[in-house]
């Protein structure tokens, strides 16, 4: 299955990868059930008829949409503008992603500023007569106001349904302004999982921004990430490599030069899958086919593969040896301090696999965890990237491993199953419930926090910090009423309704 850059519309995750959003069982079982994808796809047949068995139920709580992920990717490029072609409601995201953008810039020591998102503000009559005139007006406004290096357009549910010719407008305006004008098709209803929005952004960038005739830079490595602290530059210095952070907080030039890099890595395959595979397929930039850099075996393998591809094996071996020695004493101490503690991870898919590994390195028990979706395979289709199998093979099984797209009503039962001392989160919505049950949460706003060797220490220290918040949460728990009926809370099985009762 190849990535198809010929059409402006990205293929959704569920079409490409067989993504599911509801499942319950053991991690080892999910890993086994996902094997089909590797086998069938490796032989090139792309057997789309076969799918993981997915549960579906009548009750769902608000999720997240692809358009939001476009806001937090294309909307965070520093010298571009993102037009939201939508009624004003989708524009509510400007507030959320502005606060992330500002704090992300601050974390990366870049000048703090508001993001540049413009809503076309469609009204009732536009639903009848179409909104392309307003789209073109907003594109002109974006140009007059900021003279950006590129203009992105996010579609919305409304424009998808009324069938505005966004591609046509984008082509016309690109001709008029002489900069890339890039339509990103991300109607919320088009995919059941928001990660399709990552792919939509990356699709547009590869089609219209990445340089087609690259001059190779042999020491440049693309790092597909979000806003996290720059832990890569010091690490890469040891290997004589330079970092090219994309997509968030990048400039259009950073994006254009991705085709010139020696390799591409990421902190989470969920985010980087499409872009990394596409850069390899279209521009010959190798994607590092390794587990993610979490815990010792993962980080070792990841560094070695990066070194192999960039021909820096000796430097890497020396660095690995030094780092093992450096972090060992504190990790040993942390293992004593965290002995007997139980953790629960609820984050995006591949990222969770990495974080569970780090917890197990720290000796924390992880009997249950939750991922917001599951991709049986990533776009590279390479077994070396099978993060779930890496987790199960190196660290053992997770007995209660659930897929649930941020459904708070199920989270109660999931926590009852394993009664953790703390949870780790990356999206909001679940920690408030845990808090009302007396369980503290560690929000990993800095996605690089647990990465690499130092990440093991970082995460351990953070857990100690949040465990001491327990006093607060227990006090709160004794004084709140949950909005769920007793009947539901008494159910042992959080997936009761999805199985069909």
């Amino acid at each position, binding site marked *: 299955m190849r990535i198809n850059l010929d059409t402006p519309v990205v293929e959704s995750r569920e079409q490409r990868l067989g993504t599911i959003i509801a499942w319950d069982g053991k991690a080892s079982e999910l890993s086994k059930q996902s094997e089909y994808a590797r086998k069938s796809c490796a032989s090139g047949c792309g057997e789309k008829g076969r799918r993981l068995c997915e549960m579906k139920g*009548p*009750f*769902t*709580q*608000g*999720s*997240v*949409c*692809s*358009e*939001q992920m476009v806001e937090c990717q294309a909307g965070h490029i520093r010298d571009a503008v993102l037009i939201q072609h*939508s*009624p*004003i*409601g*989708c*524009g*509510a*995201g*400007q*507030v*959320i992603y*502005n*606060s992330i953008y*500002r704090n992300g810039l601050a974390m990366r020591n870049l000048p703090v*500023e*508001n993001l540049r*998102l*413009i*809503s*076309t*503000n*469609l*009204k*009732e009559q536009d*639903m009848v007569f179409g909104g392309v005139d307003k789209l073109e*007006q*907003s594109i002109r*406004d974006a140009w*007059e106001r900021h003279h950006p290096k590129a203009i992105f357009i996010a579609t919305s*549910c*409304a424009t998808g*349904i009324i069938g505005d010719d966004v591609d046509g407008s984008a082509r016309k305006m690109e001709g008029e302004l002489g900069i890339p004008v890039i339509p990103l098709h991300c109607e*919320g*209803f*088009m995919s*059941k999982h928001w990660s399709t929005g990552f792919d939509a952004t990356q699709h547009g960038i590869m089609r219209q921004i990445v340089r087609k005739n690259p001059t190779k830079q042999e020491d440049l490595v693309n790092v597909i990430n979000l806003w996290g602290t720059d832990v890569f530059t010091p690490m890469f210095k040891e290997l004589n490599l330079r970092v090219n952070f994309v997509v968030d907080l990048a400039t259009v030039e950073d994006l254009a030069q991705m085709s010139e890099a020696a390799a591409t890595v990421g902190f989470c395959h969920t985010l980087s899958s499409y872009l990394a595979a596409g850069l390899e397929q279209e521009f010959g930039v190798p994607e590092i086919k390794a587990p993610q850099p979490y815990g010792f075996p993962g980080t070792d393998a990841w560094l070695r593969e990066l070194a192999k591809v960039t021909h820096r094996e000796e430097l890497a071996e020396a660095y690995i040896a030094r780092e093992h020695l450096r972090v060992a004493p504190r990790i040993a101490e942390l293992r004593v301090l965290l002995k007997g503690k139980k953790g629960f991870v609820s984050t995006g898919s591949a990222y969770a696999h990495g974080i569970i590994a780090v917890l197990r390195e720290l000796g924390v028990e992880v009997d249950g965890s939750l991922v917001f979706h599951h991709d049986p395979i990533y776009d590279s289709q390479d077994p070396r990237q099978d993060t779930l199998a890496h987790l199960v093979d190196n660290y053992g099984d997770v007995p209660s491993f659930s897929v649930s797209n*941020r459904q708070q*009503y199920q989270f109660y039962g999931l926590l009852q199953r394993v009664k953790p001392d703390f949870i780790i989160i990356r999206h*909001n*919505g*679940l920690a*408030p*419930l845990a808090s009302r049950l007396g369980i503290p949460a560690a929000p990993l706003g800095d996605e690089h926090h647990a990465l690499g060797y130092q990440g093991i220490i970082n995460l351990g220290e953070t857990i100690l910090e949040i465990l001491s918040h327990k006093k607060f949460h227990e006090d709160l728990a004794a004084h709140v*009423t949950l*909005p769920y*009926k007793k*009947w*539901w809370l008494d159910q042992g099985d959080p997936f009761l*309704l999805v199985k069909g009762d």
Partner: protein
Amino acid sequence: MQGAETVVTEGRTFPPLGPKTNSIQQVRYVCAIGAMHSASAIPWVIPITHCGPGCAEKQFGSLAMCNGFQGGGYGGGAVVPSTNISESEVVFGGENRLRELIRASLKILDAELFVVVTGCIPDLVGDDAGAVVREFQAEGVPVVLAETGGFKGTNFTGHELVTRAIIDQYVGEYAGGRTPGVVNVWSMLPYHNTFWQGDLSEIKRVLEGGGLKVNILFGHESEGVSEWKRIPQAQFNLVLSPWLGLRTAQHLEGKYGQPFLHLPIIPIGADETSSFLRKVVAFAGIDPSLAEEFIKKEERTYYHYLEGFGEFYSEYFWGMPAKFVVVGESAYNLALTRFLINDLGLMPGGQFITENPPEEYREAISREFRTIADDVVTHVAFEEDSYRIHTLIRQSDFGQKPPIILGTTWERDLAKEMRSAVVEVGFPASYEMVLSRTNVGYRGAIALLEKIYTTVVSGTA
């Protein structure tokens, strides 16, 4: 404020402003489905959203989290059920999906009333959500529907749709009498106004101080739906805002023959608050002696603190802003502008009304600003697009010192550029933590002074 000149500041050039376009950069209100928060603002009421997968989370993240970190409360935030509409409901219609979700919500969630709100998809594909909700109503289920399709209005107009849905479909008909001295309060927009909880508490406290019994209707001081059921029994409705709530009050007048008092100015400070209370008490026709006693006591406390403030205000060495700019929706904008002009003697440097109020109310709003004081001229502009607002502010002449900006997170960069300060008093206030703080009434005015001048002082050295 013409916006006709080119401005160069800090090395950046801002070309003259052309005519207004459709574009909105840096939103200051959201769509009608944002009024799901008007449902979750009522104790034990939970909204059910029939919309795309991102709509509910966006509205919540924006209005309730990145706006004072207020939190979702009992039935908001990630609790809110959503049909998370996918392609199949777009193609085949979403009525069955909505029916299924309502039924499941009744099983799982503990609410006294569910309020179904719709987003743009069901409106565009022609779902008959009303028919689905009526089926449940026929079974006696406490559920109402407000059609809040995103392109139809703002969260302000959506608020009145939600309010009206509850009145018409849940409170229902009433033929009994009215209880003297009981008032229903319709004022600021829950959640969108970052300080709504503390403000409503203070308004309730003041009215009760005057001897009234208050149905505050939103926030934790409301008794929830039982209070809503008693709306028709109240003597009258009080609309405390320039326009929001007027349609509701007019509707109640038609429906229950209930009179209303419209006071456009939310009171801040002793003068304004005492006169507010006297007006309401006179309208109610109740014995004013209680109110007078309350006013005396409150003013004693107020002026005690104001005296302390006066020492600072008269002899602080390191400079203070003389002018101010307010960027915000009309209710707070008017209240703050009056307080700063009449009580502190500051000079207005531009008042930007940002919530896109319906045309028919705009002249009345402007008039309120024109008549604040005889000796002060205010410039009011109805603007929704922050790029325009910021350009207009850059082009203004503020004399020797930059103005203090009472605005939102969107003004942080502008304030830095102008070497001025911003106090985030409205949506979005992403760098404020707001729980029970208030800016209105007697107590709120003091808190507001503390906030404004802490900001000023802490910026000096």
